[in-house]
Structure formats: C-alpha cells, structure tokens
C-alpha cells in the first residue's frame, strides 16, 4: 500500500513536470536508510523519491522560501501540513499561485526514537507493512507494531482532513485521534503547581537552545527573530540560567499563539525530547475553552483568537493553568 501511494505520487509529480505545469517538486528523499528521509526538491531526477511512515517533516514552511523563487512548485502535504499551509497563506507568507498542492494520505507517522526506546538498535533495514515494521538489525531481526511507535504528534492526531489542496491522493480512509488531544495537558493541569513546576523544570533544563523547534516551526517565519535581535532585550543564545529556557519557550509559545496549528514539529525535532507541543497545546486548549473553538489553519483567515476579542470575554485572572 505504501508503495502504491509512493508510486502514484511520483507518477503525478513526473506528469506535472513533463506537462510544464510545475517547475519542481517538493517531497521527501530517502537517505542512508529507510527511516532516514529528508525533505528535498526534485526536478530532473527522482532518485530517492520516497513516501513512507517516517516522512514526518512538514513541508509547508519550505514553501516560504520556495515561492520566492521562479516557477511553480508541486508540494505534497499531509493533512496536518495543509493546516500549516493555510495558516501561512493567512499570514501572506506563501504565494499561493506558485504552489500546486497535492494532499496525500497519512496514516500516522512513526518516530524512530521510539523504536530505539524499545531497545532496538543497530538497525540495518526496515520493511513496512500496513501495521508493522519488520526491522533487520545487526543484533537480529525484530518486529514492532506501528501503533506503538507513533510519533508524538500522531498519537493524538487532531484531524485527517485535507483543508486545502489542488488535487489529492488518498487511497484509504484516514482516522484521526482527537479525543485524546488534550489528555496530557489535562494530566498536567491536574498536578499541583509544585509538581507542574518540577515537571517543566526537568524537561526544560534539558534544552540546549539549538533553536531546532523554532527553525522548524511553520509559525516561526520571522526573518529576524526576537531572540536574535539585540534590540529586543531578550536576545540570547545561551541557556545561561534556568530562567533563559523558560523565557525562550514561553515567549516562543506566546508568539505562535493563535497561529500554531498544533503540527507537532517542535516536539518531533527536539534533540532532547522535550514535549514542546504540550506548551502550545495548552494555549490552544485555553483558547478553545475560554474564547470558543478555533483551529488555526482550518481556513485562510488572519483573525485568530489572540487578535480577536469579545466584549464579554472571561476575565484574565480566571483563566488558570491548572490545579493549585
């Protein structure tokens, strides 16, 4: 099935290029191993073109730079990526006319780190079936159920709806898993202040300030981030004191509030495994509860809850982060 999808995608890409409708294709490329996939531009050669369960990267942000270039680009977007795409359109960051969006099927992406966490290492190759990964390692062959190694963002998939596309390739029904979306946030809320503090202190103290979360985030498209801008008064590169990490992550979360589509890229790329999406998700939850349900990127609209207001909004003091 995976192969079918992949070959359909490639066929379409080739067709569109051959017809001259698009100039190039933004997709994923296989590297050294099955799970080693990078976003890549294909033009003449489609060597390494791939689409498998490890193609987690959200390609929408690449379009900010891509659409500044000449010619039209064909991009493959998974359902959650289409939300980011819409959001970027709302913010005038992408030139829609230069993109041909192909919405593609996604049955949830996997996290290789979770495979490692199962004690599987020395991986030589992986064979993917509908529900399993057959893993060949130097220490013997292993099998892992896919649903045990879903990447964090896919464990609680908010939606499998392709909100924007020019064409779509969907072979099978896709199921979301949004009921559990706020489970962990709620769990944190039910902790005491002290426990929550301990939790975040432990998580954030791991931060190495590599900026991967920021640089991958489709909502963070500033060319001159406040954390790089000496005039902002908070510019910094160092996680100098435990305060710095908190400042960084709080301000970053605040800056993407209302624009974050909950794509989960921040958590996917964090080299220290910090569940950063839980910060953004808390804001989303608060906004949903207090200011009405809102999903960034569902439509193209610049009016999000953080720039909007109602005259009878709840008082700020009553919005709480959790238990006392």
């Amino acid at each position, binding site marked *: 099935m995976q192969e079918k999808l992949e070959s359909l995608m490639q066929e379409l890409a080739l067709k569109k290029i051959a017809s001259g409708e698009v100039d190039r294709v933004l997709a994923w490329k296989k590297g050294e191993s099955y799970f080693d996939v990078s976003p890549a531009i294909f033009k003449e050669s489609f060597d390494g073109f791939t689409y498998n369960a490890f193609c987690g990267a959200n390609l929408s942000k690449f379009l900010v730079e891509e659409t500044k270039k000449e010619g039209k680009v064909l991009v493959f977007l998974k359902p959650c990526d289409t939300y980011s795409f819409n959001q970027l359109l709302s913010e005038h960051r992408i030139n829609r006319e230069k993109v041909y969006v192909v919405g593609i099927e996604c049955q949830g992406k996997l996290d290789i780190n979770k495979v490692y966490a199962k004690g599987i290492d020395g991986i030589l190759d992986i064979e993917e079936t509908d529900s399993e990964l057959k893993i060949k390692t130097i220490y013997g062959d292993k099998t892992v159920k896919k649903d045990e190694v879903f990447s964090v963002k896919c464990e609680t998939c908010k939606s499998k709806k392709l909100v924007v596309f020019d064409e779509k390739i969907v072979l099978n029904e896709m199921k979301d898993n949004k009921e559990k979306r706020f489970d962990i946030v709620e769990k944190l*809320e039910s902790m005491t202040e002290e426990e929550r*503090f301990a939790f975040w202190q432990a998580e954030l103290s791991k931060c190495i300030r590599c900026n991967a979360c920021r640089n991958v985030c489709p909502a963070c498209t500033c060319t001159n981030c406040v954390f790089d801008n000496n005039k902002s008064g*908070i510019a910094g590169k160092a996680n100098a004191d*435990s305060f710095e990490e908190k400042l960084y992550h709080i301000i970053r979360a605040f800056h993407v509030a209302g624009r974050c589509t909950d794509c989960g890229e921040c958590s996917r790329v964090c080299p220290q495994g910090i569940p950063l999406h839980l910060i953004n998700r808390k804001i989303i939850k608060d906004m949903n509860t207090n200011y009405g349900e809102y999903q960034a990127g569902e439509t193209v609209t610049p009016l999000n809850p953080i720039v909007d*207001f109602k005259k009878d909004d709840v008082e*700020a003091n009553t*919005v709480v982060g959790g238990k006392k």
Partner: protein
Amino acid sequence: MQEIEKKEHKPLIVAFCCNWCSYAGADLAGSSRLSYPANVKIIRVPCSCRVNPIFILKAFQRGADGVILCGCHPGDCHYSTGNFHTRRRMGILFSLLNYFGIEKERTRIEWVSAAEGQKFSLVMNDFAKTICSLGENRRLEDLRCKKN
C-alpha cells in the same frame, strides 16, 4: 521570632498602569492619601495592551515577586479596544505561567478607572499581601540577577 523577622523578604511588586485610567486612579489614590505599600512600583504605559509578556517575564527575572497589570474597565479603554486585547493575552499568558508551575497569584490583572483611587489602593494592598504570603519568587528567578 527574631530569626523569622530577619528572614522576612520584602517583596517587590511591579505594576503596569495604563495612562488614562489606572495611572490616573493611582494619582487619585495619592491625592486622597490612600496608602499602599511602598514596594509597589508603577510603570506607566499608554494602554494596558502595550504590556508585552516579555516585560512581565523580565520583571520576574530582575527580581520582582509579583506583577500586576491595571487598565481601564473593559469597554472604557481610551483606545476603545486595547484592554480587550490585554484581557485575552494575559488570560493566556497567566494561565501558561501557571501551567509552568508559577504561582497563579503572582500575576494579576485589575481594571481600575480614573475615579477608583480607593480601589487602586485596595487592590495594591491586597496584592502586596498575597505576594507577601507567597514569599520570594523562586520559580521564575534568574540567579544571575541575584546579589552576590
């Protein structure tokens, strides 16, 4: 007893007041001689919506133990909609801070009109009392800013 007195921490409170209502309210509190603790220090901003979350974090970093925002009552904003924005932003920010385990009571927002000198004084007294009972801000401190 003596030891407790020695350890007593004098909290620092930063109050952001909008120029049109709350700062005027504070002035009224002043001209009505309604006192509030001296450790409440006011920063004048044009509107409560000028208060960037960064300012609040910065205040904590620099050693503030509590931060309070005062603005015109919703609907009475000099700029018509400023405090509505403030209300949402701060709702989200304060909740997020609390989510990080920072005591909810350390941050507060109050609507104080130019006529409410009394309220201003009451609010500040109450807030100072709350912060006093919470003690020193430890969860959002920057050790580099501590005296050594």
